[in-house]
């Protein structure tokens, strides 16, 4: 059921940051701030490129090993799309604060959980990209990501987009994929139990969501947003339309 919801984003939620965005989708709400390029600390200063620093903060409890892992995954991916070479010796700091994540009402969750949380990765990635765009940090490309699960409902395989925590618990395998705006596969994380064939299926679905390229993108993408034809939102379209409205607002005086 969560798969059918459309993502929402608001910009400039943090007036004092260089760039910020609040993104909510599939029960996750993440606020992201971007500061940079700013002066880098000695220890993390690179002579030829900007250091991209990602901090992920859970809604409750101190960040643990799992957050460190998320950070390193996001860091390596975002460093790919940011033009790090154009700001040597500087720092681009991305802070992602999880505000809300869907709870599984059938278990009493513990505060600290070390196992990976696949569902949240796309939300974090999307928030970071939006915040970077709003900060005007020069980028090679934008990126979109999504989570797909393969369920075994009464014997039949079926893919499910943006699975809820409960779905993930039941799923045979869970996958997170992210694509750049040049349709390159930027990030692929999967776990569970699946075959190459199944992964192909997942790839197709994810690609459908992340890189649905529409030539007539110019007009009214608002309604295109929530078409269920391919089961899931059209992320790239979403990205474009949200940015369009932001830019239009910024340049209202033109």
């Amino acid at each position, binding site marked *: 059921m969560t798969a059918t919801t459309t993502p929402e984003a608001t910009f400039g939620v943090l007036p004092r940051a260089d760039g910020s965005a609040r993104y909510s989708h599939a029960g996750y709400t993440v606020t992201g701030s971007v500061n940079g390029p700013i002066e880098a600390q000695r220890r993390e200063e690179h002579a030829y490129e900007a250091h991209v620093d990602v901090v992920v903060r859970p809604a409750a409890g101190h960040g643990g*090993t*799992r957050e*460190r*892992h998320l*950070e*390193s*995954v996001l860091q*390596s*991916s975002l*460093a*790919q799309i940011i*033009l*790090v*070479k*154009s700001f040597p010796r500087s720092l681009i700091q991305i802070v992602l604060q999880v505000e809300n994540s869907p709870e599984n009402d*059938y*278990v*009493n969750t*513990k505060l600290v*959980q*070390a*196992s*990976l949380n696949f569902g949240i990765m796309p939300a974090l990635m999307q928030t970071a990209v939006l915040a970077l765009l709003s900060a005007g940090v020069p980028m*090679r490309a934008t990126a979109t990501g999504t989570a797909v699960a393969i369920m*075994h409902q*009464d*014997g039949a395989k079926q893919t499910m987009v943006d699975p809820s925590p409960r779905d993930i*618990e*039941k799923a*045979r395998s869970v*996958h997170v994929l992210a694509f*750049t705006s*040049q349709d*390159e*596969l*930027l*990030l*692929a*994380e*999967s*776990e*569970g*139990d*699946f*075959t*190459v064939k199944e*992964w*192909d299926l997942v*790839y197709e679905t994810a690609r459908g969501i992340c890189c649905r390229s529409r030539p007539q993108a110019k007009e009214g993408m608002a309604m295109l947003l929530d078409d269920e034809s391919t089961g899931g939102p059209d992320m790239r379209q979403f990205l474009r339309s949200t940015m369009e409205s932001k830019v239009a607002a910024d340049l209202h005086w033109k």
Partner: protein
Amino acid sequence: MAGPTISLPAPIFAKISPHPFLVRSLTRSTAADHPPCRANGRATQELRPVRFNATSLSHAHGSALVRLGDTTVLCGVRGELLPVERIPQFRPVDKEELRQQGENNNGNCGDAIGRGELRDYDLLVPNIELATGSAPQFLPGVPPTTLAQTLSTRVYSLLHSTGLVQAGDLKIWYSPKEQRRGEDVEMGGTGDKEDGDEEERPVAYWVLYIDLLFVSFDGNPFDVAWAAVVAALRDTRLPVARWDPDREVVVCSKTERRRLNVRGLPVACSAAVFMEKEQSEAGAGPREGGHWLLLDPDRLEETLCKEVITMVVDCSDDETRIKSLEKQGGTLLGRELIRGYAGIAERRWKEVRTAME
């Protein structure tokens, strides 16, 4: 880049300008007879041989020493008893939930619940120690690096997602059928129904502390770490334990030991993408310039590569099952390459299996 005219001893060349050094050795062949290869003398697709050495520790319940080239990992598994009343959020699996789960994922009934127990009560505790001076960048006595934390997270979640260990093996049951006297024993915590004491109930769990120690580090830590974990778990034998209602303690048998039945044999296989050009000033996409997929990268290579891939496969059954796939840090590995990579992973799996047996 050092032209042919200048001749530097290889190690110095590698030190001062590692990237060109690697490019050079990958592009030009040293001798006519064999083709260009990596700085470490391996072909791009060539993996280092892996060697296992089980039960190397006498005190641990299970252990293994794994060597992959110059990366050596020692893994020890130790079980400790955890009585249910010491588990704050303990919650006996109630029947109708079992049934629900059964319907939901037909076949492997109760499996999900088992995983739930493993996770909720933290029955599997992997810990990775890199700061042993195993490599220049890991000096002893420093707080765990990001790498160490990342590795332990990956091992932890793979342990759970693969279901390598089943909760059943770690549960210690008590069935009052033959022991009526246990009934009036106040079991704070075993939150069961009225008829709780009638049916058999879990009284304690084994907690498996899985400690990984990097003896030496020369790249590709995850593959080795994971192999060590699997080997150590296969080697693990826990003493047979039962509940003694008179003394209200769990007693372990001195002699009797039961080995865990480890499910399947998932094997990790990692590679890194090496770009001919470091991302150029213009920031032109990484597409330009050649690139190589370096399997089982060593430390030097890892420092020079951004994009990495790790695939965990299990070919125990006829069909190859992928247990985990992690690809990040670049945009070069597309669908086709990843498809093809499965084949490489299978090859790896076979090698590892033979090495293990």
